């Protein structure tokens, strides 16, 4: 019996030692999840989530310190992708309908400040001309709203059209 105890102890010590060495010398430098999450985020570093850019947000998400619904430009679809990636449930409101920037043409003075801030070049317009937002390119990060001197640039909900409308989920009181 002593022989068996001896062998098992030796094996345990040996393998434990190997694991310890492996943990020390083969350690992965950064969290691989961090990179993967960063790829999913919009990457415009708008800061609406409260973290210093998308890198900071990805770190917080990977550490489980942030909710998956943190990114307004990404909206509910991103929240769902993140939830699937992190293996958590999407909880709470995902921020209502998506918001995109649009210019109130009555008050735009053509200062051209907004175009320089736009991370996706979605704002067009020459100086002293009314500016416009290409809705397909806008991600609703809100960076332009901060620099607009006349507050003519606002984030507004996107109107539903026949192309984007779909049937709502049936609201039944029981599981199917």
């Amino acid at each position: 019996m002593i022989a068996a105890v001896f062998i098992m102890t030796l094996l345990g010590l040996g393998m434990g030692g190997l694991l310890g060495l492996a943990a020390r010398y083969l350690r992965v430098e950064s969290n691989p999840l961090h990179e993967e999450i960063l790829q999913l985020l919009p990457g415009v570093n708008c800061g609406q989530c409260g973290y210093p850019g998308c890198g900071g947000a990805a770190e917080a998400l990977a550490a489980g310190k942030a909710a998956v619904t943190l990114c307004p430009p990404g909206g509910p679809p991103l929240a769902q992708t993140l939830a699937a990636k992190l293996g958590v449930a999407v909880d709470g409101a995902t921020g209502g309908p998506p918001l995109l920037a649009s210019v109130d043409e009555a008050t735009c003075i053509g200062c051209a400040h907004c175009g320089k801030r736009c991370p996706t070049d979605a704002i067009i317009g020459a100086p002293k001309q009314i500016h416009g937002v290409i809705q397909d390119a806008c991600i609703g990060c809100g960076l332009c709203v901060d620099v607009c001197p006349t507050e003519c640039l606002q984030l507004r909900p996107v109107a539903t059209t026949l192309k984007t409308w779909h049937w709502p989920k049936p609201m039944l009181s029981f599981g199917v």
Partner: protein
Amino acid sequence: MKLFDFWGGVHPLGQKHLSAEQPIRELPMPARLYVPLQQHTGRAALPVVKAGDKVGKGQLLGREHGGVSASVHAPTSGTVVAVGEFTAPHASGLSLPTIMLDSDGEDRWVEREPPPDPFALEPEAVADRIGAAGVVGMGGANFPAALKLGKARQAKVHTLAVNGAECEPYMTCDDRLMRERAEPIVDGVRLMLHALQAPRAVIAVEDNKPEAAAQMRAACQHDRNIQVAVVPARYPAGSAKQLIQLLTGLETPSGGRGTDTGVLVHNVGTAYAVHRALRQAHPLISRIVTVTGGAVVRPQNLEAPIGALVDDLLAFCGGAPAAARLLMGGPMMGQPLPGTQVPIVKGTNGILALTAAETLTVEPSPCIRCGRCVEACPMGLMPLEMSKRARRDDLDGALAFGLIDCISCGSCAYACPSRIPLVQYFDYARGALEIRQRAEQKAKETRRLLDQRQARLAREERAKAEAAARRQAEKLAAKAKARAKTGAAA
């Protein structure tokens, strides 16, 4: 000819007797028509008229625009009142760009030049004329017919299946069309065969329409390459994929198109529209609409101009005072209407006004996993598993169970003893999936735009640095020159 079978399906109460014996009557021209610029799959037509323009019957109102699109024409002569937005015949109640046209009561045609012999035209030219007449698939899918024919010719389709099955309960417009206008339909079929360069056509009629089948047989008795097949009445025999399976035994691959089996399906109404487009240069400006349902005082089949309001049609049929539910289309796949002030469009086969007794009032109850929906599904899917996942927003799970292959026929919901709105779950899931795909596409696009902006900023920075370096160098050179000059002077 030998017939095959498809899996599943249901036998809903036909209710076709309400309107089947009513001959097609022409709807008196309403005072104002509302012609939507988008009545088809794809992109909306571009308006080519403006408010105040006088137009003749059949004149172009909106030109096809972009890859998949169809033109729209004036259903009567008159004055364009406005080009604006009007409520679409759609469950959402949202609006569509629409041309409002006041009839002048003359119904005066524009100049028409039908080709003397359409069979002398090249197949492409036939398809072009069908496209120019704004013909779309009239069985409900509303896909531009010319494109469908062109694609099928390229795919070397061997059979044209002409769909006269009309499996939707209550609907009788195709039945009446086949009974009363069999010759023009067969002529349209010959023209489509010419445009397709396909060897044969099969006209499929369900066995609950013996008169229609007899008329079609009589009309094509001298055509060796056109056959009439009487198929057993079972819903959804009139769905393209099921019809192909019935006629050839071939199953359309998952995610594929009917033409993958070498068969192209077109509705009898489309064949009729093709005949009129080529023989009379008559664009698609009217169609046969079945106005029926227990609530309609005098159920009828009407030939109505596109753009007539549902209200006009119902009023002509004596109204529908007891209507508890108003649908565009049949009871299985029809869509609820936001009201009667919506126009009929090219794909409107029927207006159905149901009484409270005809509509379902039973509250849904939990799934008992009886599997009747699985037995009923003609696509061989498992609706109970798909709906469970759709309810939990597990879109990938629903996809894995074949959501993409669902044809929304409603057989599962019809068979469900718990009355669960299964199809609405699938419609919801498909909509959510589309939103997700759009978001993914946008994320990709955002990344591209970001990269391009970064590259542009870097380029500008570099250009600035280079310009500064050049200026510096010039300054130095000028200084050196000046020094050399002063040195020489000294």
